[in-house]
Protein backbone atom coordinates (compact mmCIF):
# COMPACT_ATOMS: atom_id res chain seq x y z
CA UNK A 1 0.00 0.00 0.00
CA UNK A 2 2.66 2.49 1.11
CA UNK A 3 4.86 1.18 -1.66
CA UNK A 4 2.13 1.74 -4.21
CA UNK A 5 1.53 5.30 -3.00
CA UNK A 6 5.20 6.01 -3.32
CA UNK A 7 5.09 4.66 -6.81
CA UNK A 8 2.14 6.90 -7.43
CA UNK A 9 3.96 10.05 -6.27
CA UNK A 10 7.04 9.17 -8.27
CA UNK A 11 4.89 8.80 -11.31
CA UNK A 12 3.18 12.12 -10.65
CA UNK A 13 6.52 13.89 -10.38
CA UNK A 14 7.70 12.22 -13.55
CA UNK A 15 4.52 13.22 -15.34
CA UNK A 16 4.88 16.88 -14.33
CA UNK A 17 8.51 16.88 -15.46
CA UNK A 18 7.56 15.29 -18.79
CA UNK A 19 4.78 17.82 -19.35
CA UNK A 20 7.02 20.80 -18.63
CA UNK A 21 9.77 19.51 -20.90
CA UNK A 22 7.31 18.70 -23.66
CA UNK A 23 6.01 22.28 -23.55
CA UNK A 24 9.26 24.23 -23.16
CA UNK A 25 11.73 22.43 -25.38
CA UNK A 26 9.80 22.79 -28.67
CA UNK A 27 8.84 26.41 -27.87
CA UNK A 28 12.47 27.44 -27.58
CA UNK A 29 13.36 24.96 -30.30
CA UNK A 30 11.20 26.76 -32.86
CA UNK A 31 13.32 29.90 -32.54
CA UNK A 32 16.52 27.91 -32.51
CA UNK A 33 15.67 25.92 -35.63
CA UNK A 34 14.61 29.14 -37.35
CA UNK A 35 17.96 30.63 -36.42
CA UNK A 36 19.80 27.62 -37.90
CA UNK A 37 21.21 26.70 -34.52
CA UNK A 38 19.69 23.22 -34.28
CA UNK A 39 22.83 21.87 -32.63
CA UNK A 40 22.98 24.61 -29.97
CA UNK A 41 21.13 22.38 -27.51
CA UNK A 42 23.67 19.59 -28.00
CA UNK A 43 26.53 21.97 -27.31
CA UNK A 44 24.95 23.33 -24.15
CA UNK A 45 24.11 19.76 -23.09
CA UNK A 46 27.77 18.79 -23.27
CA UNK A 47 28.82 21.78 -21.20
CA UNK A 48 26.03 21.18 -18.67
CA UNK A 49 27.58 17.83 -17.74
CA UNK A 50 30.48 19.69 -16.14
CA UNK A 51 27.91 21.68 -14.18
CA UNK A 52 26.24 18.50 -12.93
CA UNK A 53 29.56 17.06 -11.82
CA UNK A 54 30.45 20.32 -10.06
CA UNK A 55 27.24 19.93 -8.08
CA UNK A 56 28.28 16.47 -6.89
CA UNK A 57 31.79 17.70 -6.12
CA UNK A 58 30.63 20.66 -4.05
CA UNK A 59 27.61 18.97 -2.50
CA UNK A 60 25.09 21.41 -4.03
CA UNK A 61 22.06 20.42 -6.09
CA UNK A 62 23.39 19.34 -9.51
CA UNK A 63 20.42 21.01 -11.23
CA UNK A 64 21.50 24.40 -9.83
CA UNK A 65 25.15 24.06 -10.78
CA UNK A 66 24.05 22.79 -14.18
CA UNK A 67 21.98 25.97 -14.65
CA UNK A 68 24.95 28.19 -13.85
CA UNK A 69 27.48 26.32 -15.98
CA UNK A 70 25.16 25.85 -18.96
CA UNK A 71 24.23 29.55 -18.95
CA UNK A 72 27.94 30.40 -18.95
CA UNK A 73 28.44 27.90 -21.78
CA UNK A 74 25.52 29.31 -23.78
CA UNK A 75 26.86 32.85 -23.43
CA UNK A 76 30.31 31.67 -24.56
CA UNK A 77 28.79 29.88 -27.57
CA UNK A 78 26.80 32.99 -28.52
CA UNK A 79 29.84 35.25 -28.24
CA UNK A 80 31.86 32.93 -30.47
CA UNK A 81 28.97 32.71 -32.96
CA UNK A 82 28.48 36.48 -33.06
CA UNK A 83 32.12 37.01 -34.01
CA UNK A 84 31.46 34.77 -36.99
CA UNK A 85 35.03 33.67 -37.56
CA UNK A 86 35.78 30.32 -39.16
CA UNK A 87 37.93 29.47 -36.13
CA UNK A 88 34.71 29.79 -34.09
CA UNK A 89 33.65 26.36 -35.34
CA UNK A 90 36.74 24.78 -33.80
CA UNK A 91 36.38 26.87 -30.64
CA UNK A 92 32.87 25.50 -30.17
CA UNK A 93 34.04 21.92 -30.70
CA UNK A 94 36.74 22.42 -28.06
CA UNK A 95 34.16 23.77 -25.64
CA UNK A 96 31.92 20.72 -26.14
CA UNK A 97 34.70 18.16 -25.66
CA UNK A 98 35.90 20.05 -22.62
CA UNK A 99 32.38 19.96 -21.22
CA UNK A 100 31.98 16.18 -21.51
CA UNK A 101 35.53 15.31 -20.45
CA UNK A 102 35.40 17.78 -17.56
CA UNK A 103 32.09 16.33 -16.43
CA UNK A 104 33.30 12.72 -16.52
CA UNK A 105 36.54 13.65 -14.74
CA UNK A 106 34.89 15.69 -11.98
CA UNK A 107 32.25 13.02 -11.51
CA UNK A 108 35.01 10.46 -10.97
CA UNK A 109 36.65 12.62 -8.33
CA UNK A 110 33.40 13.61 -6.58
CA UNK A 111 32.66 11.73 -3.33
CA UNK A 112 29.16 10.59 -4.29
CA UNK A 113 29.94 10.21 -7.98
CA UNK A 114 29.44 6.95 -9.83
CA UNK A 115 28.97 5.72 -13.37
CA UNK A 116 25.30 5.06 -12.62
CA UNK A 117 24.79 8.69 -11.57
CA UNK A 118 26.66 9.89 -14.64
CA UNK A 119 24.45 7.75 -16.84
CA UNK A 120 21.30 9.09 -15.22
CA UNK A 121 22.27 12.59 -16.35
CA UNK A 122 23.56 11.55 -19.76
CA UNK A 123 20.50 9.50 -20.66
CA UNK A 124 17.89 10.82 -18.22
CA UNK A 125 16.33 9.26 -15.14
CA UNK A 126 12.81 10.56 -14.98
CA UNK A 127 11.84 8.05 -12.28
CA UNK A 128 14.36 9.56 -9.87
CA UNK A 129 13.01 13.11 -10.13
CA UNK A 130 12.60 14.59 -6.65
CA UNK A 131 10.18 17.21 -5.35
CA UNK A 132 13.07 19.67 -5.16
CA UNK A 133 13.88 18.96 -8.81
CA UNK A 134 10.29 19.65 -9.76
CA UNK A 135 10.33 23.04 -8.05
CA UNK A 136 13.48 24.02 -9.89
CA UNK A 137 12.25 22.61 -13.20
CA UNK A 138 8.92 24.40 -12.70
CA UNK A 139 10.60 27.74 -12.05
CA UNK A 140 12.85 27.32 -15.08
CA UNK A 141 9.89 26.34 -17.25
CA UNK A 142 7.99 29.44 -16.09
CA UNK A 143 11.00 31.58 -17.01
CA UNK A 144 11.25 29.98 -20.45
CA UNK A 145 7.55 30.44 -21.22
CA UNK A 146 7.71 34.05 -19.96
CA UNK A 147 10.59 34.78 -22.32
CA UNK A 148 8.66 33.33 -25.25
CA UNK A 149 5.53 35.31 -24.38
CA UNK A 150 7.25 38.64 -23.69
CA UNK A 151 9.98 38.59 -26.32
CA UNK A 152 8.38 36.28 -28.91
CA UNK A 153 7.66 39.04 -31.41
CA UNK A 154 11.20 40.38 -31.28
CA UNK A 155 12.78 36.92 -31.29
CA UNK A 156 10.77 36.06 -34.41
CA UNK A 157 12.28 39.04 -36.25
CA UNK A 158 15.76 38.24 -34.93
CA UNK A 159 15.61 34.56 -35.91
CA UNK A 160 14.06 35.34 -39.30
CA UNK A 161 16.46 38.09 -40.34
CA UNK A 162 19.08 39.53 -38.01
CA UNK A 163 19.80 42.49 -40.31
CA UNK A 164 16.15 43.42 -40.29
CA UNK A 165 16.14 43.23 -36.50
CA UNK A 166 19.08 45.65 -36.43
CA UNK A 167 17.45 48.03 -38.90
CA UNK A 168 14.31 47.98 -36.73
CA UNK A 169 16.32 49.13 -33.73
CA UNK A 170 15.92 45.88 -31.78
CA UNK A 171 18.56 45.13 -29.12
CA UNK A 172 20.10 42.38 -31.25
CA UNK A 173 22.96 41.51 -28.89
CA UNK A 174 20.66 41.27 -25.88
CA UNK A 175 18.10 39.17 -27.74
CA UNK A 176 20.79 36.81 -29.05
CA UNK A 177 22.07 36.27 -25.52
CA UNK A 178 18.50 35.87 -24.30
CA UNK A 179 17.74 33.07 -26.75
CA UNK A 180 21.02 31.32 -25.84
CA UNK A 181 20.34 31.59 -22.11
CA UNK A 182 16.76 30.39 -22.58
CA UNK A 183 18.10 27.40 -24.49
CA UNK A 184 20.45 26.71 -21.57
CA UNK A 185 17.53 26.74 -19.12
CA UNK A 186 15.62 24.36 -21.38
CA UNK A 187 18.57 21.99 -21.49
CA UNK A 188 18.58 21.81 -17.71
CA UNK A 189 14.82 21.24 -17.60
CA UNK A 190 15.09 18.40 -20.10
CA UNK A 191 18.24 16.92 -18.59
CA UNK A 192 16.42 14.82 -15.99
CA UNK A 193 13.83 13.61 -18.46
CA UNK A 194 15.66 12.65 -21.65
CA UNK A 195 19.28 13.16 -20.60
CA UNK A 196 21.92 15.61 -21.76
CA UNK A 197 22.81 13.60 -24.85
CA UNK A 198 19.22 13.63 -26.11
CA UNK A 199 18.14 17.08 -24.86
CA UNK A 200 18.39 18.64 -28.28
CA UNK A 201 16.09 16.00 -29.77
CA UNK A 202 13.11 17.43 -27.92
CA UNK A 203 14.03 20.94 -29.08
CA UNK A 204 14.36 19.98 -32.72
CA UNK A 205 12.26 16.91 -33.62
CA UNK A 206 8.81 18.29 -32.65
CA UNK A 207 9.57 21.45 -34.63
CA UNK A 208 10.71 19.46 -37.66
CA UNK A 209 7.53 17.38 -37.34
CA UNK A 210 5.28 20.38 -36.98
CA UNK A 211 6.68 22.29 -39.95
CA UNK A 212 5.69 19.45 -42.27
CA UNK A 213 2.09 20.35 -41.60
CA UNK A 214 1.92 24.09 -40.95
CA UNK A 215 2.04 27.36 -42.87
CA UNK A 216 2.92 29.87 -40.20
CA UNK A 217 5.42 30.43 -37.41
CA UNK A 218 2.91 30.67 -34.60
CA UNK A 219 1.06 27.53 -35.60
CA UNK A 220 4.36 25.69 -36.03
CA UNK A 221 5.30 26.55 -32.46
CA UNK A 222 1.90 25.63 -31.06
CA UNK A 223 1.77 22.31 -32.85
CA UNK A 224 5.39 21.56 -31.93
CA UNK A 225 4.53 22.08 -28.26
CA UNK A 226 1.61 19.66 -28.64
CA UNK A 227 3.88 17.08 -30.31
CA UNK A 228 6.47 17.63 -27.60
CA UNK A 229 3.97 16.90 -24.85
CA UNK A 230 2.58 13.86 -26.70
CA UNK A 231 6.07 12.42 -27.16
CA UNK A 232 7.30 13.04 -23.62
CA UNK A 233 4.16 11.82 -21.88
CA UNK A 234 3.77 8.92 -24.33
CA UNK A 235 7.37 7.85 -23.81
CA UNK A 236 6.94 8.03 -20.04
CA UNK A 237 3.82 5.87 -20.21
CA UNK A 238 5.60 3.36 -22.45
CA UNK A 239 8.35 3.04 -19.87
CA UNK A 240 5.85 2.18 -17.13
CA UNK A 241 4.77 -0.93 -19.02
CA UNK A 242 8.17 -2.50 -18.79
CA UNK A 243 11.18 -1.72 -16.64
CA UNK A 244 13.29 -2.59 -19.66
CA UNK A 245 12.10 0.49 -21.58
CA UNK A 246 14.29 3.51 -20.83
CA UNK A 247 11.97 6.57 -20.79
CA UNK A 248 14.44 9.01 -22.36
CA UNK A 249 15.05 6.84 -25.39
CA UNK A 250 11.34 5.96 -25.63
CA UNK A 251 10.42 9.67 -25.72
CA UNK A 252 12.91 10.46 -28.47
CA UNK A 253 12.02 7.41 -30.57
CA UNK A 254 8.33 8.27 -30.26
CA UNK A 255 9.06 11.81 -31.39
CA UNK A 256 11.02 10.43 -34.37
CA UNK A 257 8.16 8.10 -35.28
CA UNK A 258 5.85 11.11 -35.23
CA UNK A 259 8.24 12.93 -37.57
CA UNK A 260 8.23 10.07 -40.08
CA UNK A 261 4.44 9.99 -39.94
CA UNK A 262 4.18 13.76 -40.44
CA UNK A 263 6.56 13.54 -43.39
CA UNK A 264 4.04 11.32 -45.15
CA UNK A 265 1.01 13.35 -44.14
CA UNK A 266 2.82 16.60 -45.02
CA UNK A 267 3.26 15.47 -48.62
CA UNK A 268 -0.49 15.15 -48.96
CA UNK A 269 -1.08 18.48 -47.25
CA UNK A 270 1.37 20.25 -49.55
CA UNK A 271 -0.04 18.60 -52.66
CA UNK A 272 -3.48 19.90 -51.68
CA UNK A 273 -1.95 23.30 -51.01
CA UNK A 274 -0.36 23.72 -54.44
CA UNK A 275 -3.59 22.70 -56.16
CA UNK A 276 -5.44 25.21 -54.04
CA UNK A 277 -3.07 28.06 -54.86
CA UNK A 278 -3.11 27.40 -58.61
CA UNK A 279 -6.88 27.44 -58.46
CA UNK A 280 -6.97 30.71 -56.58
CA UNK A 281 -4.50 32.38 -58.90
CA UNK A 282 -6.26 31.61 -62.14
CA UNK A 283 -9.37 33.76 -61.67
CA UNK A 284 -7.19 36.62 -60.41
CA UNK A 285 -5.19 36.54 -63.63
CA UNK A 286 -8.38 36.60 -65.69
CA UNK A 287 -9.66 39.65 -63.87
CA UNK A 288 -6.44 41.44 -64.63
CA UNK A 289 -6.56 40.43 -68.28
CA UNK A 290 -10.04 41.90 -68.61
CA UNK A 291 -8.95 45.09 -66.87
Amino acid at each position, binding site marked *: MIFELLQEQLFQLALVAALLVGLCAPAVG*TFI*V*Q*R*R*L*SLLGDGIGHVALTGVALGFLTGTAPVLTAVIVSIAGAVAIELVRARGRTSGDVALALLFYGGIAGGVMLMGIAPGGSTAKLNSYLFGAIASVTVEDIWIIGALAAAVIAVVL*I*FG*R*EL*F*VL*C*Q*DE*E*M*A*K*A*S*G*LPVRFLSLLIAVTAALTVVIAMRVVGLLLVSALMVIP*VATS*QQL*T*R*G*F*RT*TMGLAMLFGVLASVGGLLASTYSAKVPPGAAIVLLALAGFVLALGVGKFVRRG*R*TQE*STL*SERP*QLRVEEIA
Partner: protein
Amino acid sequence: MSETAFAMTDGRVSFDGKPVLRGIDLTVCPGEVVALLGANGSGKSTLVRTLLGLTPLTGGRTLVYGTPPARFRDWWRIGYVPQRLQVGGGVPATVREVVASGRIARQSRLRRTSAADKAAVASALEAVRLADRAGDPVQSLSGGQQQRVLIARALAGEPDTYVMDEPTAGVDAETQQLLADTLAGLVEAGKTVVLVAHELGPLEPIITRGVVIREGRIAHDGRPPRPEGDCARPGHEHQHPHAEEPVGGPLTGWQGEPR
Protein backbone atom coordinates in the same frame (compact mmCIF):
# COMPACT_ATOMS: atom_id res chain seq x y z
CA MET B 1 16.13 74.08 -38.80
CA SER B 2 14.30 71.19 -40.37
CA GLU B 3 15.98 67.81 -40.15
CA THR B 4 17.71 65.76 -42.80
CA ALA B 5 16.86 62.08 -43.20
CA PHE B 6 20.47 61.07 -43.76
CA ALA B 7 23.66 63.08 -43.60
CA MET B 8 27.00 61.43 -44.32
CA THR B 9 30.23 63.36 -44.22
CA ASP B 10 33.41 61.87 -45.66
CA GLY B 11 32.03 58.33 -45.17
CA ARG B 12 34.71 55.69 -45.52
CA VAL B 13 34.39 51.93 -45.30
CA SER B 14 37.04 49.28 -45.87
CA PHE B 15 36.72 45.52 -45.71
CA ASP B 16 39.97 43.81 -44.65
CA GLY B 17 41.93 46.92 -45.58
CA LYS B 18 40.36 47.16 -49.03
CA PRO B 19 38.53 50.49 -49.38
CA VAL B 20 34.92 50.18 -50.56
CA LEU B 21 33.69 53.69 -49.82
CA ARG B 22 36.31 56.40 -50.20
CA GLY B 23 34.84 59.57 -48.79
CA ILE B 24 31.13 59.95 -49.44
CA ASP B 25 29.32 63.20 -48.74
CA LEU B 26 25.59 62.65 -49.03
CA THR B 27 22.66 64.50 -47.56
CA VAL B 28 19.12 63.29 -48.11
CA CYS B 29 16.37 65.76 -47.36
CA PRO B 30 12.79 64.84 -46.49
CA GLY B 31 10.63 64.32 -49.56
CA GLU B 32 13.52 63.43 -51.84
CA VAL B 33 13.45 60.29 -53.95
CA VAL B 34 17.09 59.38 -54.38
CA ALA B 35 18.35 56.60 -56.62
CA LEU B 36 21.83 55.30 -55.84
CA LEU B 37 23.18 54.02 -59.11
CA GLY B 38 26.32 52.30 -60.18
CA ALA B 39 27.92 49.14 -61.48
CA ASN B 40 28.16 45.96 -59.45
CA GLY B 41 30.79 46.34 -56.76
CA SER B 42 30.72 50.14 -56.94
CA GLY B 43 29.79 50.34 -53.27
CA LYS B 44 26.16 51.42 -53.57
CA SER B 45 24.80 48.59 -51.43
CA THR B 46 27.50 49.20 -48.83
CA LEU B 47 26.50 52.85 -48.84
CA VAL B 48 22.85 52.16 -47.92
CA ARG B 49 23.91 49.64 -45.30
CA THR B 50 26.24 52.24 -43.83
CA LEU B 51 23.51 54.86 -43.81
CA LEU B 52 21.49 52.48 -41.61
CA GLY B 53 24.43 51.55 -39.41
CA LEU B 54 24.35 47.90 -40.56
CA THR B 55 27.92 48.28 -41.77
CA PRO B 56 30.11 50.40 -39.49
CA LEU B 57 32.06 53.31 -40.93
CA THR B 58 35.82 53.09 -40.78
CA GLY B 59 36.07 56.85 -41.20
CA GLY B 60 33.89 59.93 -41.38
CA ARG B 61 30.46 60.08 -39.85
CA THR B 62 26.83 59.56 -40.71
CA LEU B 63 23.61 60.72 -39.12
CA VAL B 64 20.08 59.33 -39.25
CA TYR B 65 17.65 62.16 -38.52
CA GLY B 66 20.48 64.03 -36.84
CA THR B 67 21.72 61.13 -34.69
CA PRO B 68 24.50 58.57 -35.28
CA PRO B 69 22.90 55.16 -36.09
CA ALA B 70 24.25 53.58 -32.91
CA ARG B 71 22.41 56.10 -30.75
CA PHE B 72 19.36 56.50 -32.99
CA ARG B 73 16.16 55.42 -31.24
CA ASP B 74 13.28 56.33 -33.57
CA TRP B 75 13.75 53.38 -35.92
CA TRP B 76 10.05 53.38 -36.74
CA ARG B 77 10.86 56.35 -38.95
CA ILE B 78 12.91 54.10 -41.24
CA GLY B 79 11.53 51.31 -43.41
CA TYR B 80 14.27 49.05 -44.71
CA VAL B 81 13.70 46.80 -47.70
CA PRO B 82 16.63 44.38 -47.96
CA GLN B 83 17.73 42.81 -51.22
CA ARG B 84 16.01 39.52 -50.57
CA LEU B 85 13.78 37.82 -48.07
CA GLN B 86 15.55 35.72 -45.47
CA VAL B 87 13.52 32.60 -44.83
CA GLY B 88 15.60 31.37 -41.93
CA GLY B 89 16.05 27.74 -41.03
CA GLY B 90 12.94 26.34 -42.63
CA VAL B 91 10.30 27.08 -40.02
CA PRO B 92 7.40 28.36 -42.11
CA ALA B 93 6.12 31.90 -41.64
CA THR B 94 3.00 33.25 -43.29
CA VAL B 95 2.99 36.34 -45.47
CA ARG B 96 0.94 38.10 -42.80
CA GLU B 97 3.42 37.19 -40.03
CA VAL B 98 6.35 38.57 -42.01
CA VAL B 99 4.50 41.74 -43.01
CA ALA B 100 3.32 42.24 -39.41
CA SER B 101 6.94 42.08 -38.23
CA GLY B 102 7.39 45.43 -39.99
CA ARG B 103 5.44 46.97 -37.08
CA ILE B 104 8.05 45.84 -34.55
CA ALA B 105 9.70 49.25 -34.16
CA ARG B 106 6.32 50.75 -33.26
CA GLN B 107 5.32 48.07 -30.77
CA SER B 108 6.18 48.03 -27.11
CA ARG B 109 7.18 44.75 -25.57
CA LEU B 110 4.21 43.98 -23.38
CA ARG B 111 1.49 45.44 -25.56
CA ARG B 112 -0.63 43.11 -27.61
CA THR B 113 -1.16 43.61 -31.33
CA SER B 114 -3.46 46.64 -31.64
CA ALA B 115 -6.21 47.48 -34.11
CA ALA B 116 -3.86 50.04 -35.66
CA ASP B 117 -1.26 47.30 -36.19
CA LYS B 118 -3.81 45.07 -37.88
CA ALA B 119 -5.12 47.87 -40.09
CA ALA B 120 -1.61 48.86 -41.19
CA VAL B 121 -0.77 45.24 -42.05
CA ALA B 122 -4.02 44.80 -43.98
CA SER B 123 -3.50 47.95 -46.02
CA ALA B 124 0.15 47.05 -46.71
CA LEU B 125 -0.98 43.66 -48.02
CA GLU B 126 -3.59 45.39 -50.17
CA ALA B 127 -1.02 47.83 -51.55
CA VAL B 128 1.19 45.03 -52.88
CA ARG B 129 -1.84 42.91 -53.87
CA LEU B 130 -0.98 39.98 -51.66
CA ALA B 131 -4.06 40.08 -49.44
CA ASP B 132 -5.26 36.80 -50.91
CA ARG B 133 -1.94 35.14 -50.07
CA ALA B 134 -1.75 36.44 -46.48
CA GLY B 135 -2.13 32.99 -44.95
CA ASP B 136 0.37 31.24 -47.22
CA PRO B 137 3.94 30.52 -46.19
CA VAL B 138 6.38 33.04 -47.68
CA GLN B 139 8.56 30.12 -48.71
CA SER B 140 5.93 29.12 -51.27
CA LEU B 141 5.96 32.48 -53.07
CA SER B 142 7.87 33.36 -56.22
CA GLY B 143 10.83 35.74 -56.12
CA GLY B 144 8.75 38.69 -57.29
CA GLN B 145 6.06 37.96 -54.72
CA GLN B 146 8.68 37.70 -51.96
CA GLN B 147 9.97 41.12 -53.02
CA ARG B 148 6.44 42.43 -52.61
CA VAL B 149 6.30 40.91 -49.12
CA LEU B 150 9.45 42.85 -48.22
CA ILE B 151 7.94 46.07 -49.51
CA ALA B 152 4.71 45.39 -47.62
CA ARG B 153 6.72 44.79 -44.45
CA ALA B 154 8.26 48.25 -44.78
CA LEU B 155 4.87 49.80 -45.65
CA ALA B 156 3.30 48.21 -42.57
CA GLY B 157 5.71 50.13 -40.33
CA GLU B 158 4.42 53.43 -41.79
CA PRO B 159 7.87 55.01 -41.72
CA ASP B 160 8.91 58.47 -42.90
CA THR B 161 11.82 57.22 -44.95
CA TYR B 162 12.14 54.10 -47.07
CA VAL B 163 15.52 52.57 -47.77
CA MET B 164 15.42 49.95 -50.49
CA ASP B 165 18.31 47.79 -51.61
CA GLU B 166 17.74 46.83 -55.26
CA PRO B 167 13.96 46.50 -55.04
CA THR B 168 13.74 45.96 -58.79
CA ALA B 169 16.49 43.35 -59.17
CA GLY B 170 15.28 40.05 -60.55
CA VAL B 171 11.65 41.08 -60.36
CA ASP B 172 9.04 40.62 -63.08
CA ALA B 173 7.70 43.59 -65.02
CA GLU B 174 4.37 43.46 -63.23
CA THR B 175 5.99 43.74 -59.80
CA GLN B 176 8.24 46.56 -61.08
CA GLN B 177 5.20 48.51 -62.19
CA LEU B 178 3.46 47.76 -58.89
CA LEU B 179 6.52 49.02 -57.03
CA ALA B 180 6.58 52.18 -59.14
CA ASP B 181 2.90 52.85 -58.43
CA THR B 182 3.36 52.20 -54.71
CA LEU B 183 6.38 54.51 -54.59
CA ALA B 184 4.51 57.22 -56.46
CA GLY B 185 1.85 57.09 -53.74
CA LEU B 186 4.49 57.37 -51.03
CA VAL B 187 6.15 60.31 -52.77
CA GLU B 188 2.81 62.05 -53.01
CA ALA B 189 2.39 61.54 -49.26
CA GLY B 190 5.73 63.33 -48.75
CA LYS B 191 7.78 60.27 -47.80
CA THR B 192 11.52 60.11 -48.39
CA VAL B 193 12.93 57.28 -50.47
CA VAL B 194 16.51 56.13 -50.95
CA LEU B 195 16.84 53.21 -53.29
CA VAL B 196 19.66 51.28 -54.83
CA ALA B 197 19.11 50.30 -58.41
CA HIS B 198 20.97 48.87 -61.32
CA GLU B 199 18.40 50.14 -63.79
CA LEU B 200 15.43 52.32 -63.03
CA GLY B 201 12.86 51.08 -65.53
CA PRO B 202 9.36 52.15 -64.52
CA LEU B 203 10.75 53.94 -61.44
CA GLU B 204 12.40 56.61 -63.60
CA PRO B 205 9.60 59.22 -63.53
CA ILE B 206 9.40 59.44 -59.74
CA ILE B 207 13.12 59.71 -59.00
CA THR B 208 14.06 63.27 -58.05
CA ARG B 209 17.76 62.73 -57.77
CA GLY B 210 20.26 60.26 -59.11
CA VAL B 211 23.53 59.67 -57.31
CA VAL B 212 26.07 57.62 -59.23
CA ILE B 213 28.66 55.72 -57.24
CA ARG B 214 31.86 54.70 -58.97
CA GLU B 215 34.69 52.93 -57.15
CA GLY B 216 33.47 54.09 -53.77
CA ARG B 217 33.08 57.75 -54.68
CA ILE B 218 30.19 59.86 -55.84
CA ALA B 219 30.84 60.28 -59.54
CA HIS B 220 27.69 62.18 -60.30
CA ASP B 221 24.97 63.76 -58.25
CA GLY B 222 21.96 64.62 -60.36
CA ARG B 223 20.24 66.79 -57.85
CA PRO B 224 18.39 69.60 -59.59
CA PRO B 225 20.32 72.82 -59.02
CA ARG B 226 18.93 74.77 -56.12
CA PRO B 227 20.46 76.83 -53.31
CA GLU B 228 22.40 74.88 -50.67
CA GLY B 229 20.49 73.87 -47.61
CA ASP B 230 17.07 74.69 -48.99
CA CYS B 231 15.69 71.52 -47.44
CA ALA B 232 16.43 73.30 -44.18
CA ARG B 233 13.90 75.94 -45.11
CA PRO B 234 10.64 75.03 -43.39
CA GLY B 235 7.66 74.48 -45.63
CA HIS B 236 9.61 74.63 -48.86
CA GLU B 237 7.99 73.40 -52.05
CA HIS B 238 9.76 70.49 -53.63
CA GLN B 239 10.33 70.79 -57.36
CA HIS B 240 10.31 67.64 -59.44
CA PRO B 241 11.95 68.63 -62.70
CA HIS B 242 12.55 64.99 -63.61
CA ALA B 243 8.87 64.30 -63.69
CA GLU B 244 8.64 66.66 -66.66
CA GLU B 245 11.70 65.41 -68.51
CA PRO B 246 12.21 61.88 -67.31
CA VAL B 247 14.97 60.74 -69.66
CA GLY B 248 18.41 62.23 -70.12
CA GLY B 249 19.52 65.23 -68.10
CA PRO B 250 21.41 64.58 -64.92
CA LEU B 251 20.85 60.84 -65.07
CA THR B 252 22.74 60.23 -68.29
CA GLY B 253 25.94 59.77 -66.32
CA TRP B 254 25.05 56.34 -65.06
CA GLN B 255 23.47 54.99 -68.18
CA GLY B 256 26.77 54.58 -69.96
CA GLU B 257 28.20 52.95 -66.85
CA PRO B 258 30.07 49.70 -67.53
CA ARG B 259 28.53 46.65 -65.84
